[in-house]
Structure formats: C-alpha cells, structure tokens
C-alpha cells in the first residue's frame, strides 16, 4: 500500500455532522492521482460517499487494502454508531463517537507504521464529551491512544511555526507557568518539530513574556529570571535558540527568515501572529507525540455543514504539511 518516497497520510473524517467529510472530499479532488493513492481516508463509508456526492467529486473510494485504480482514494471503513441519528449541523453523542473511533484507528495505524502521518478533520469538543470521553478534544484523544500524556500544539503558517509555553489558561496563570524547565522543554519540542519538517538545523526564537522582553527588569523580571536561563540551557544542549526577543519584534524576524519556529509565552501572543499572517494556510500540528499529526485550524462549522459551501483550503494546507513531515530519531 505504501508508495515509495511519499508519505502515506491517514485522513480522519472528523465529526460527521460538521464540515469534515465535505472539506476532505474537496481537498482530495484537488490532489494529483499519486497523492490520492497515498492518502487513506478513515471514516464512515456512508457519510464519506454522501460527501463525495455533495461535492460532485471526480474520484471514487476503494476499500482500504484493495488495488487502487488510477485516481481513486483508499477508504478504511469505520462505521458510525446510530447513523440515522446523525443529522447535518446537529451536535450529538453519536457523531462525536463516530469521529473519535476514526482517531483511535488512525493512531493505531500510525503506531503500527501502516501510515506515516495523521491528518485530522475537526471534532466538536462538546460532542466528544457527550460521547462519554472526559477529555479535551483531539489533544486528549491523542494522549489517551498514544499513552503520552503531554503534547504541544504547533500552529504553522507558511512563513513560520509557533509553539506555546502555555495555551488555554488565563494570562495570570500563564505568568505562573513561565518557568525555566517548562520553557526549556518547549524549546526542545520546538526544535524536534522543525526537524520533522525537513529542516536540518532549526533556528528557534523565544519570545519574551513582558513588553520589550522586560526591558532589563523595568517591566517584569521573568524574562531575565526564567526565559533567558532556558535559552542558555537550550544552547548548551546544542539547540540554535535565540531570545528572549520582544513579542512585537520576534514574529517579523521569523517572517524575514531568521527563524523557523517561535516559542511564544502564552496563547494570544502566538495565535495573534500566526492567524494574522497565515490566514487559511495556518494549520495545527501536534508535537511531542510518538506519531506525526496535522490538523485543520477550524471547527466543525455546524452552521454551514453539508451545504456544499465549506472552504477546503485549510484542509488542503493541513494535507500538504502532513505530506512533507518525516519522523526523526529520538
């Protein structure tokens, strides 16, 4: 099944009540035949066929494992529970469960080496909880199925990638989490992530926490007390780390080509920059796992689901990113 020299991507359907199946079919339709062949859709056959019809796709699905005719796409069937209860645009436990099953299968295949990278369509966090999973969406599922508790969200736009020392915590709490060991670990993960994208010598920038990176202690001491020592420790490990660089300067430097990745100190610092620059080309990557995973950076968009109007450009970008990632040793 595996094509020599090209990543095989496992593409998970996402929540079938959302736009996942539609954007997958639109994105697949735009791929060249050899790339389609190296892409396995992991999803419910009924919903995937419906989506194929909805977008009047120019390809057909063939069962995973069968010989793939020119232009077709392999589909690994993971049946959804209670299909009839799953309604376009409607939040439900069944749709949530259907999406989760696909992720589980994809992780198993990635761990077994059957696929190289997972690329996921969006789940709805509430639907996942309704399905009985006491965890936070994809990040929680990936931790559950790989057994690796901590993972990191990387936002990647064409110009640079950004990873965060802390994400979904209040700004006050983010200040508490800005500590040397945590920053250093994030720098390590950042470097490893850039290596997976095929850059031999990653250059990592570390944003300062405070305005002007603290301006010599005038605007807070965390940059001197915690960020600078983390950067020094990373350099001592051989990582080409630079910082702390003021938040309002560092992203422009990355755009100018000085760094492949920026370690942001808190959620909005990195998200503002990446979403501003990348637009629909900004994708999500989960770093720190034993497998590779990219994802769209949007939600299930229930309000426009199954109307044929969803924009597949973000899914295309997530697939393109998955295609160029390679595992690195260690």
């Amino acid at each position, binding site marked *: 099944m595996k094509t020599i020299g090209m990543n095989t991507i496992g593409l998970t359907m996402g929540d079938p009540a959302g736009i996942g199946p539609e954007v997958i079919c639109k994105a697949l339709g735009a791929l060249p035949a050899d790339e389609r062949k190296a892409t396995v859709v992991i999803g419910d056959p009924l919903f995937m066929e419906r989506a194929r019809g909805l977008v009047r796709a120019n390809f057909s699905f063939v069962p995973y494992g069968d010989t793939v005719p020119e232009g077709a796409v392999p589909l690994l069937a993971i049946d959804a529970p209670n299909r009839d209860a799953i309604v376009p645009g409607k939040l439900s436990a069944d749709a949530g469960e259907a999406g989760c099953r696909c992720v589980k299968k994809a992780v198993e295949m990635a761990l077994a080496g059957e696929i190289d990278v997972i690329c996921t369509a969006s789940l709805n966090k509430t639907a996942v909880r309704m399905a009985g999973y006491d965890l936070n969406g994809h990040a929680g599922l990936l931790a559950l199925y790989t057994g690796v508790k901590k993972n990191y969200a990387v936002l990647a736009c064409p110009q640079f990638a950004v990873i965060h020392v802390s994400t979904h915590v209040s700004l006050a709490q983010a200040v508490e989490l800005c500590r040397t060991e945590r920053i250093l670990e994030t720098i390590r993960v950042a470097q490893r992530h850039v290596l997976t994208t095929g850059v031999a010598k990653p250059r990592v920038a570390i944003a300062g926490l405070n305005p002007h990176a603290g301006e010599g202690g005038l*605007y807070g001491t965390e940059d001197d007390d915690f960020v600078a020592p983390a950067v020094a420790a990373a350099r001592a490990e051989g990582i080409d780390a630079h910082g702390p660089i003021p938040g309002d300067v560092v992203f422009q430097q990355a755009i100018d080509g000085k760094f492949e990745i920026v370690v942001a100190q808190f959620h909005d610092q990195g998200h503002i920059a990446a979403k501003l620059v990348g637009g629909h080309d900004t994708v999500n990557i989960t770093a720190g796992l034993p497998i590779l995973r990219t994802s769209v950076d949007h939600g299930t968009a229930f309000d426009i689901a199954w109307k044929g109007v969803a924009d597949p450009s973000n899914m295309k970008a997530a697939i393109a990113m998955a295609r160029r990632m390679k595992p690195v040793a260690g």
Partner: protein
Amino acid sequence: MTDRPAPLALTLGEPAGIGPDVALAAWLNRGAATPPFLLLGDPIFLQRRAKTLGLDVPIAVVAPSEASSAFSRFLPVVDLGLPVTTAPGRPDASSAPAAIAAIDRAVALTMAGEAAAVVTCPIAKHVLTAAGFPDPGHTEYLARLAARRTGKPATPVMMLWSPELAVVPVTIHIAIAAVPAALTTDLIVETGRLLDRDLRRRFGLAKPRIAVAGLDPHAGESGTIGTADRDVVTPAVTALVTEGIVARGPLPADTLFHDAARKTYDAALCMYHDQALIPIKMIAFDHAVNVTLGLPFVRTSPDHGTAFELAGTGRADPSSLIAALGLAGRLAAADAAAKGAGSAGTAG
C-alpha cells in the same frame, strides 16, 4: 480671508539619533499630502547633518508665522538659540537642553494657535533623564505641559494608527504579571470613552466602532479560562454601550485582526502591550504612527526609536514620520473644525 494653514510643529528629538535624518528626508519627500511643518532645532546642526547625508535641503530660518509660505521652497527652521554639536550615533548630555526646549516650544506654539499640532521625533530617555527631565517619556511630559497650561490634569492615551488598523493598549509598559490587577473596569471605560471622543472629534467618525479585546485566551470562554473577561471587561463594555458608545466585546484577540475582522471596527481597545503591538507591527511595520489621545492638542510621532546605529548613514526610513505628519495635519484640521463649530455655538 483664509490664511495659509498653521504649520505643524516638528521637534528634532535626540540629535544623535535618526530624528534629523528623517526630518530632512520628510521635507525632501514632501508630497501633496504632507502638511507644511516647521522644524524646531539648530539650523547650523541641520545643515551639517544634511551635508553628512549628501542631501540638498535648503534651510530657511523663519518665524513660526512665515513657515507655511516658505515650506514649498525651504525647510523652515525655528531657531531655539541652543547650538547642537552632537555627532550621529554618539549621544551626549550637551544636546539635552535643546531637545527639551523643542518640545516646550512645540507645545507653546500649538496651544497658542501658531502651530496646528505637535509632531515629535524620538528622544533618548537616558540622555534627558541625566539632564533632569522629570518624566519617563514624551507622552507624560506632554501631559505635564498641557496640565500646566490649562490648569486641568490630562490623561494621555496611546494609540497606534495605520490606515489598516488602529489599536489602543489599555495597559502599556508594565509587567504581564501586573496586568490583571492594573486592569479595572473603570480604566477600560475611561480609555474607551477617550478613544470614542477623539475618534469623533479628530478622526471625523460620526459613530466610531470600538472592538474590545479579551484579556484571556478565547476572551475567557465564558469564565472557564480566567474570570477577568467576565468580571472586569464585560461590565466595561456594557458601561460604554450604556453611554451610547458603539463598543463590542470582549472578543477573542486571536481572531480580531485579520482582514475581514478589521472591517467591523474603527479601533481595537487592547488589554496589554503585545496584544496591540504584535498586530500593528505585523500589519503596518514601517508606517504605523503613534498618536497621543486625551491631550488638549493633537500630537503624533513616528513609531520608531532613535536608532543610533542608522543615524547619519542615510539608511533611516522616513515613512513613519511622513505618515505621522500627514495624520497630524488631518487630525488638526478636524480638531480645528470641531472647535470652530463649538465656539460658533456659544459665541452668539
């Protein structure tokens, strides 16, 4: 009879920095959109810097009232009688009195109606502090001068403006750890009110739309990621709306600045430095203008520092100063019109 408009009063700033370079370049690159300005500084020093830069700038020492008519042919300079000998890139204490005098004079001329607005080139804080400058920066000093002249305290508010985006940070140069405590409902309301007033009066917007950014990720997600957005920011937005101000928020900051989002508001009220500065610098890297709201006169400045390493090399980019001059002219005209309308109403 309508006279020529009053010129803008441009201060030289730190003479060892790029202030003189960009001021000379701004005059050379003046266009139809550049309002006439007078430069407050030492004419001999300016001639010398022009020569260093290889720029052909004819300088005329003028009285403020002559500046606008001279502007098309000469760079009008108002001599402060304080010679400056500082070399490019090498700040020294001797220039501090001239730098301070230029600010004093610019404010005096503007408040007397002899100049339309104050535009400042960057100063070097450490040079001025050593010379006894009482404030942490330009803005605070300008507020002090304004208060001295009007007898009323002035609350300056910093706005960064570009044609694509205008942002106002509610807290600015403080540690992130200090932001949650510094951010009160009152402070947000007061800043929003000032912003609304200046957007109407000086930016000519009849019904300005203000987007208020949330403090925490996803604007706190209904209190699940921090409580400040629910307990502090939301009541401020409600209070502003109750006053008739078109304010929306708290809005997640990471989706507030892309093209489509920016079309929905005229200015974004941000909760801290990087939240405002990251997007404006990414969107308007070389042409953002610093505007001080809340003063009894219009004041703008370029959004860069002294850049000592570029002074005298000819590599300093005057775009931000040119944008600052253009905006100051526009804001001053609107301000004057508003004043005119106000006095017409009361003059009887």
